């Protein structure tokens, strides 16, 4: 496993054109490096994320996919001793620019976490949370947004009669869809999903996958997953990462059927990882 990786990011060999979205790419990750203290975790990551499509980040544990994802909405700011180099541009603007308002950035980049993390409050208040921290107090606006978000997350029919109930009383799958609804309520452009199904049973997983397919086009989705079949099912483009480097990036079909890199092939066919 420790053999040196010789692939240069961006080289013709491993980077072929991913499926194009309608508009110019929404996110450009440009020679992005990241260090935890002395240890470098990401090496010269360079990709563009297409608008309105679902991009899957796959790779073995510890390859840096979550780190990359959490860099995109600057969740990593909380970690002490973290250094970065390079740029991530959202609509052409570097998100690490000192003038960028992190709070505004996070409102444009919603995030769904590995474990469902509803707040200890009612279902309604959970979904309304992004608006409330924004200072929205108008009950009508709140109610409309909550309903729209819950419908978008395919949860409305299940919970519309118990919006005042505690969110912690829901099942795991429902909680995760609630978290997606909460992320949607902030009206983001990009949805970052960090292994959203790893804590769920197969039925709940398939519901979330259906939901991702529903949301395709409305939001740009970047999903980290360990589950190859899931990546194949839900994503348009796939990024394969290994030891902090992006090895291959292309159409999901291509990556899974005709990977150009031996390691990618080994990984997607289950020979390691």
């Amino acid at each position, binding site marked *: 496993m420790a053999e040196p990786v010789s692939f240069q990011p961006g080289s013709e060999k491993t980077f072929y054109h991913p499926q194009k979205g309608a508009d110019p790419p929404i996110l450009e990750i440009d020679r992005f490096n990241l260090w935890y203290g002395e240890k470098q975790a990401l090496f010269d990551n360079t990709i563009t994320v297409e608008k309105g499509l679902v991009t899957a980040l796959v790779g073995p544990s510890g390859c840096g996919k979550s780190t990359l994802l959490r860099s995109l909405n600057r969740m990593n700011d909380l970690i002490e001793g973290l250094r970065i180099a390079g740029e991530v541009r959202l609509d052409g603007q570097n998100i690490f620019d000192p003038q960028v308002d992190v709070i505004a950035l996070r409102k444009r980049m919603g995030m769904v976490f590995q474990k469902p993390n509803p707040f200890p*409050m009612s279902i309604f208040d959970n979904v309304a949370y992004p608006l409330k*921290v924004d200072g929205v107090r108008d009950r009508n606006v709140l109610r409309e947004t909550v309903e729209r978000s819950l419908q978008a997350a395919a949860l409305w029919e299940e919970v519309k009669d118990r919006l005042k109930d505690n969110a912690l009383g829901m099942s795991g799958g429902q909680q995760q869809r609630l978290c997606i609804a909460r992320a949607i309520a902030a009206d983001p452009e990009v949805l970052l999903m960090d292994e959203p199904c790893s804590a769920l049973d197969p039925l709940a997983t398939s519901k979330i996958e259906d939901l991702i397919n529903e949301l395709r086009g409305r939001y740009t989705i970047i999903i980290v997953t360990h589950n190859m079949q899931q990546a194949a099912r839900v994503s348009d483009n796939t990024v394969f990462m290994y030891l902090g480097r992006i090895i291959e990036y292309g159409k999901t079909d291509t990556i899974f059927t005709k990977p150009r890199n031996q390691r990618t092939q080994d990984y997607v066919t289950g020979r390691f990882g």
Partner: protein
Amino acid sequence: MRSSTISSSKRSVFETGCNLTAQGEPFVWSMAGGLAIGIFMIVAFLVLILWNGLVAFYPGPIRLLHLKNGRVMAGEPIRSELYRIDPQKLGQMSEEARRMVMDRGGYSRRWLYKTGNFDLYNDDYRWVDDDDIERMETPDDLVMVERREWGPFIGTIRMLKIDGKEISDPSEIVRRIDDEIQLACARFEAIRTIERDRIGDVNHRMEAARLALRKELMKPNVGAAEREAAQARHDQEMAEWKERYQVLEREVDARKAEDSRFRVVLADVEGRQKEMAISQIVRRIPANGLTTAGRLGVYADRWWELVSAEPREANTEGGIFPAIFGTFVMTMLMVVVVAPFGVMAALYLREYARQGLLVSSVRVCVNNLAGVPSIVYGVFGLGFFAYTVGGIVDSLLFAEKLPNPTFGTGGLLWSALTLALLTVPVVIVATEEALSAVPDSLREGSLACGASRWQTIKYVVLPKAMPGILTGLILAMARGAGEVAPLMLVGVVKLAPELPIDGNFPFLHLERSFMHLAFHIFDVGFQSRNSEAGKPMVFVTTLILVGMIAVLNATAIFVRNRLKRKYMTGHF
């Protein structure tokens, strides 16, 4: 192939010898033993307090003792013990008595009798050996009279002198005495109300006028004309108040003169008489003639007096209302101070401060603060709060009262602050633990929604941590309410003339000294002239203190559980 390996195993699952240490049995036993000892001690403590506290006020019978030496005495039996008779005394006893004692191994039983009548006997408890008693009666006409001064009187009521009319017929006395006591009590209360409230108010106004004049005179650059005007205003006010004072004084004198026409003559069992005003009687207990219901009535009456009245007889009798009130107000004040300080400090330490050497050392210091002896806090509170801060406050705001200190001496505020300082480590540690128990995923979820750090703390972290924080506050409250050593230095007194809350502006008088239950226990039990007389009071005060802490804790736990539910269902 595999099955052959398994079947070849010769190990049996039916172990015959078992290794106790490996199974941890001795540790389980010692753990259970430790728990059992702990529970036993708590239960024994509670039973002791409850039993002694609850029986203290139940009136016992009054025995009339005819002693072998020809004397008579009367008293309420308190407790008995076996004791070894002094050989010298044994030598003086008759042959028959000595043989009896020797048969019992040199031991004899004696009872402690509460004889009362301190003004006649110079003591009010006496040990009497059972062997010294010729015979014993419990006559119905013996009464215990609780008095406002000199403690209880045990004997008979000989005569009522009402308005010069003498009533000495026993049945007539019994018929009238209770009504007369009630009337006398009303008269006594009326006099006291005038003395304390109305004359007290006049005194308060006169003091205020005097201070206003001094304040005026102390101002720099005051012209002679203004000085004279202030002096004139003061004189005029003073004259008015003095006039009112004299009116009130005359009224009190008149009422006292009227009261002194109602008198009672008591006699002890040996016939010594004692005459006094009826208004000196708190209650009359015909102990031997009482039914069980009557006894319970006396019992309830005594409890009511305890929780509602002020102390008398150097705190050994009467009520402890000022102490209950002082403890409650001080504890509440302490919680009001300690809660925001502790919680904010912990929030900063846990949520904002960069975790490093500095924060770790602050944390160690906070933990060590919890172990500092409380008397050290008392010394600090006196030196820093009372003398330094209080001195500055006095020189800035109450200069006209100097050299009499206002805030520059022990008082309610400084006591509350000292105890807040004492308990703040408990709150900080508990809050930090509660905060660190909030999963990071919640914080991340909130931040990812575009909430700021403060919003995350306010809406997600604090609600989630609130039950833990309240637990810390409950612990702090329980510790603070029972603490007495530092309070003795910074504001608790044996007998406070005024409550810390009254009708005069600004209603809550933070500078006043106050009474405290825990100090009351110490004072009555160990500082009074007659520890036997104070004993019931020590036990009931302990019971009330323990009960009060229990009630405060129960309330806080109730609030915590309510909050828990509320934050679980969640509103902004």
